[in-house]
């Protein structure tokens, strides 16, 4: 027997969700096996991981909070990928954003909040865009693959943060390499009283909305999509391919940087070397699982928020390694991406035949 994948002419609307659901089930099954191996009870673990965060106000709002940076990086990656610019550097751009934001935060003591907040967000955005500039120029001017350059700049951004925190920004009280707390005037508003859900989430949703509107509805968005799908055809149609790529790359970096500022001004209030829990890399995953749709990215980011919160509960309650949360995300990524592709095919099994079939 031999399997052949044959492209379907049309895909009924329910196949996508069905297969993604199947992928999720498969993920749960694989996770359950791992949890069993780790000595935990699979069923409660799965409940802790995927459901219980949604059942309490605390769990839900904390899920929103941990989804916030992923909303930004997911949008940043999605918009870049839509234009065919393979930005793997959202991590570095987000980190650059945290640097810019911290810099403003540490120097904005005397400002009113209505000035301080826009300033800190702007700084994050600018630094993120700036960090995206070099690879973007190398790509558009010299044709150098951006995957590698954006990727390699990620550790460099982190090293700059370590350098700053070991040097000029070392905590003036504890001497530990985390910065002083930023000025009150630059801290973001809490949008859900008595929780930690801050203005950054609202901002993230607005960014998602703007991206969706721009790419789907505006003329610039049509150009962006054309450049992403067929750069040569776009060039022949007179579209400014290089400029589109450059601007998209900067926008992508700016969004990631804004995400960094939102973390600094919204929750962390200080810069630490571990400020980003691979938010940028996770953004690639978020965007892809969402099939590069912006609304999808928002939903996937929220789902990741739930898993992040849930795997902490599961780890503690059932005494299983906390790494399992990451493992679940990885398995989920792989199964869902495969499901998204498989839905486009049907599998034809051919039995080795000696005679032709009728």
């Amino acid at each position, binding site marked *: 027997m031999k399997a052949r994948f044959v492209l379907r*002419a*049309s895909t009924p609307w329910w196949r996508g969700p069905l297969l993604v659901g199947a992928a999720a089930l498969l993920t749960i099954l694989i996770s359950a096996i791992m949890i069993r191996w780790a000595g935990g009870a699979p069923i409660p673990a799965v409940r802790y991981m995927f459901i219980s965060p949604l059942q309490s106000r605390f769990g839900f709002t904390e899920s929103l909070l941990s989804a916030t940076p992923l909303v930004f990086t997911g949008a940043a990656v999605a918009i870049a990928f839509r234009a065919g610019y393979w930005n793997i550097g959202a991590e570095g751009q987000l980190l650059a954003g945290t640097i810019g934001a911290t810099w403003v935060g540490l120097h904005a003591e005397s400002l009113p909040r209505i000035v301080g907040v826009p300033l800190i967000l702007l700084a994050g955005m600018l630094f993120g865009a700036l960090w995206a500039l070099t690879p973007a120029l190398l790509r558009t001017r010299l044709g150098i693959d951006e995957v590698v350059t954006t990727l390699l700049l990620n550790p460099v951004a982190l090293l700059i943060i370590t350098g700053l925190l070991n040097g000029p920004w070392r905590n003036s009280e504890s001497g530990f390499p985390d910065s002083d707390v930023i000025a009150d005037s630059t801290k973001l508003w809490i949008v859900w009283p008595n929780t930690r859900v801050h203005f950054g989430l609202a901002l993230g949703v607005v960014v998602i909305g703007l991206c969706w509107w721009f790419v789907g509805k*505006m003329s610039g968005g049509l150009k962006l999509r054309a450049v992403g799908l067929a750069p040569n*055809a776009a060039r*022949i149609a007179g579209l400014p391919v290089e400029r589109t790529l450059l601007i998209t790359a900067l926008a992508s970096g700016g969004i990631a940087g804004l995400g960094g500022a939102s973390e600094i001004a919204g929750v962390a209030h200080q810069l630490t070397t571990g400020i980003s829990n691979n938010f940028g890399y996770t953004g690639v995953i978020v965007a892809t699982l969402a099939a590069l749709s912006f609304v999808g990215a928002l939903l996937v980011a929220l789902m990741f928020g739930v898993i992040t919160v849930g795997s902490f509960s599961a780890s503690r309650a059932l005494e299983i390694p906390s790494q399992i949360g990451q493992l679940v995300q990885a398995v989920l990524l792989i199964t869902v991406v495969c499901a998204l592709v498989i839905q486009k095919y049907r599998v034809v099994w051919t039995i080795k035949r000696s005679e032709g079939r009728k």
Partner: protein
Amino acid sequence: MNSVEGVVIASRGGAPSIYLRNITKAYGETIALSDVSLDLRAGEVHALLGENGAGKTTLMKILYGLSQPDSGQIEADGVALKIESPRDARAAGIGMVTQHFSLVKNMTVIENIALASAKTFAIDLARVRAEIVSASTRFGLDVPPDAIVSSLPISLQQRVEILKALMSGCSYLILDEPTAVLGPNDIDSLLEVIRRLRSDAGIGIVLISHKMAEIEKVADRVSVLRRGQVVSSSLANGITSKELVTLMVGEQQSGAEQRQRSASPSQSQSPILVLESVGVTREAGGLSDVSFAVRPGEILGIAGVSGNGQTELVNVLSGTTQIDSGTIVVEGRQLGSNTPQSLMRAGVGILGEDRHASAVHALQVVENLILDCVEKFAGKLQLRRKEMLSHCESAITQFEIKANPKQAFGTLSGGNMQKVLLARLFSRNPKVAIISQPTRGLDVMATNYVRSLIAQASKQSTAVVLVSEDLDEILELADRVAVMYRGSVVGIVDHSEASRESIGELMAGIAK
């Protein structure tokens, strides 16, 4: 390769025949082939005709194992053949030269040919080279073994393809629209090769083509496919090309009207597009000292054997290749630099030679149609979708496009793709239209329609630069013919003096 000898022996020792029996193949909703049966014989040239999308390529891909039929089977001498991959097909003595060539561009000829027989470990390139040399003399197909494929002109690449198939020992050879990419001289020599392979080596050849003249010259047997079915299969002598066209398209009118040229339309007017000593330096090829002028309402044909700078010229005029010397003047104004944007702003429109590369397959027809004038439909907050759609619908009516505005461009047939791109070009009312290979690979009906569109545009005083490898097309449409050879224009001939012979000489580089 001893298999080369094997071919000869096999064909002398009786005539094996291949029978495609009741082949059906559907792509989703599209039925590409329905219950097709076809009979191929050794030592015979079998021409396969049909409109675009009739199913010719699909049928041959199935025979060569590139595609699997939904039902039906293939037999050789009455024995069922199992062809699940090109490897199986080659083992059964079938070779194919596909419509879009299947060569690895930046490998050498030797490597390309060695590929087919490469073992996992050692490869003996010296032996392959010797085999190439001996095979090229045997079959009269000269190729430079050490050249990198991408540096060869199309006609030579095609020879490599044919040689590759022959050296794998095939006794049947499928050629899918081999002449679509060749100039007249190369077509003639290809037909000569085909004849020789048939008579001297006894090879059975399937020739797919849209050009009746060629079929008349070499075919022994002709089969016509229409909408996935064989409507006729008979010996070639005694059937006229008119009958064939009727068989292909049904009872529709298919006559092409000659272009009416108004007496020297525009000699009085001043030229609208002037190229002066334009040069592009490249390691290989490029342009040197290209000069010509086109007047409103005039069609300037650009003839030449492919690979003599036509592609570069079109790229220069579309702005995708920057010029290194010379000037381009549009309407008396010299362009600072020839970017796509500046050319468009000056009123130059373009139809590229590769329709697939000129459009975004995944976008809708309507989106592709306005891709070069997105700003025109940009509202304050979003694209004015309604206007786009109505613009698209009127283009669909005006240009007789068989498509739905929201359909993905990539799902159109070649002819309809071409019509959409022409609609895009002409709806900007360009002062100058650069049109390259407009009818390559199109069937008779579509070809005639596209040509009439070009003629019509010139009537509305658009200046047209028509680049084509089809000399008949140029002779039919052009007012003057510029001939390119090795990157320069070697002569410009007026329509009244232009003939296949005079232009052919210029194309071959025999200077006046």
